[in-house]
């Protein structure tokens, strides 16, 4: 087993939660090289922001981290287990990954309370437990007063709160968020970031967040910059150079 390259500036603290080794992914029969040899590791409790210009491969990378897509080459390990060749990737996602999307992706026919329960079907929870836990999660994200609202009746910020509650449904090991504030105005964007930071700070949630917004990236412990399918830089927040200021 190859040792992962030490994360710049981070203390080497045993087995990383997520370990990416020389991952490649191309599309259209090799005409689009979306990822060209990406390696890094994420440790338990870290908050990593991924930035980079449009088309640099951020979403492609996030999909691979969440076992939504398969790498053409390279290895991705979650808690030491290779997730590039899973027999049951859906089960893996249900147990370990919380996704937050730019477009929220709530089910329009279901209320807030019901949307949060959707992932719990795969956790084999009793109906009553699902309901109770969904209510608790909605209270945590500040949506306890909107349990029975349909997504169409909620503001963008409120929808994203519900989506975050849903991402926590099965107590995942990591949250993967692809531009979670991309559809929100600055006020709502702020509130969502406060919520995510709070989860990181207070509950030790590991967070990998893709964003275009430097303001948002600034909240992270560490910023990875992608360029043309490769990592251009990987810096801890304290070391961020002036160019991001």
């Amino acid at each position, binding site marked *: 087993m190859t040792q992962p390259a030490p994360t710049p500036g981070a203390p080497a603290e045993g087995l990383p939660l997520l370990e990416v080794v020389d991952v490649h992914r191309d599309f259209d029969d090799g005409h689009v090289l979306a990822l060209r040899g990406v390696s890094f590791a994420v440790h338990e409790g870290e908050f990593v922001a991924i930035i980079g210009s449009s088309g640099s491969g951020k979403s492609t990378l996030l*999909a691979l981290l969440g076992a939504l897509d398969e790498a053409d080459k390279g290895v991705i390990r979650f808690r030491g287990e290779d997730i590039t060749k899973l027999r049951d990737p*859906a089960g893996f*996602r249900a147990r370990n990954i919380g996704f937050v999307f730019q477009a929220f992706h709530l*089910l329009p026919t279901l209320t807030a309370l*019901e949307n949060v329960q*959707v*992932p719990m*079907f*795969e956790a084999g929870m009793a109906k009553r437990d699902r*309901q109770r836990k969904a209510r608790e999660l909605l209270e945590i994200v500040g949506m306890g007063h909107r349990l029975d609202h349909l997504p169409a009746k909620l503001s963008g910020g409120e929808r994203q709160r519900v989506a975050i509650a849903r991402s926590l449904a099965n107590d995942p090991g990591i949250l993967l968020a692809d531009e979670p504030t991309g559809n929100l105005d600055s006020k709502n964007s702020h509130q969502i970031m406060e919520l995510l930071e709070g989860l990181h700070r207070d509950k030790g949630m590991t967070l990998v967040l893709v964003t275009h917004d430097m303001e948002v990236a600034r909240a992270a412990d560490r910023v990875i910059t992608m360029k043309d399918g490769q990592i251009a830089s990987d810096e801890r927040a304290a070391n961020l150079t002036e160019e991001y200021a």
Partner: protein
Amino acid sequence: MTLLQLTLKNLTRRPIRTVLTVMGIGVGIGAVVALLGLAWGLGESWTDALKARGTDLVVRKASGFLLAEPFDEEWIKQVREVPGVAQAANLLTEVLSIEEAPTVVVSGREWGTFVWDHLTIVDGRLPRSGDEQAVVLGKLAAEQLQKKVGDKITIEVADFTVAGIAECKALVENATVFMSLKNLQNIVTKEKQANFINIRMKDNSVPPDEISKAIVSKLPNCTVETAEDLSDNNEAVKTFKAMNWGTSLIALLVGTFGVMNTMFMSVFERTREIGVLIALGWKRSRILRMIVYESMALCAAAGVLGVVLGVALLKIMARMPIMEGKLEPHIGPDLLGLAMGLALGVGLLSGLYPAFRCTQINPSLALRQ
């Protein structure tokens, strides 16, 4: 919230499409209920006719296709010796052209046996003896032949008097001319011959199967059928049933494609949502179940609608003059259960393929849309 509740909510998002689909397949199921109700009703009216004359079992020659082949009338003696047989009667049934009517069923019945007891005479009387040159006409036969009580009627070379008009439960019997076995044997020159033996059993003392076996062992050329078998094997009933099943299956097939089309539209516009469910970790089997439940729920609603429509249609038809009193449609839990079963089958069949296609959705692609 359960998976089923989640499924049902999906049906509410395009209410008009849902209602139209339910109506489409519902009308199809209604047609199936009506057609099968008629076919089963016809079969039963035959069975009823046999039962009404007190016939439990019928013996005929095993050979012979549409018309039963004649045999020696003395065979009945062997049948009467079989334990469990209460009474037995020889019958000769012929299809003859009488005066202006090209095909009339003429039933020659052994005089003095139970098969005469159950004719309900509505006008006139029964023949006085097996030797009287007299016939009884079924109500329809009387209309067809334009005869009333006291009229003369020429059958083959012989003249008869219409002694009475009988009302019978079965359409076939209503269109029949009845006379004594001996008279019919004479006019068709089949002396001492019969082609059916009707049997009335002693009450449950010997099971019908055993009676049948005992008869066949004495008369190896023969088969024994219950009243139900006989109507099932009747060519007219068979043809009618087959036609109605054929039409029903076409209706169901059309319905299946209709529901499949709706389901395809429904899942196609939800590709991204289904991608989300897969991303959230839903197993493919759960996605499959969600879609199949959805189409089955559509069809369950259609089944209820179809049963209501079909029963209404049968009730209306039963009141129509050409049907009244001749063919009582079958409306029973078995038919309604079958209709619901067929509806759910359509739901399963039409949901499986769209559901399977959903399980093939690539979540990362779907989420890019």
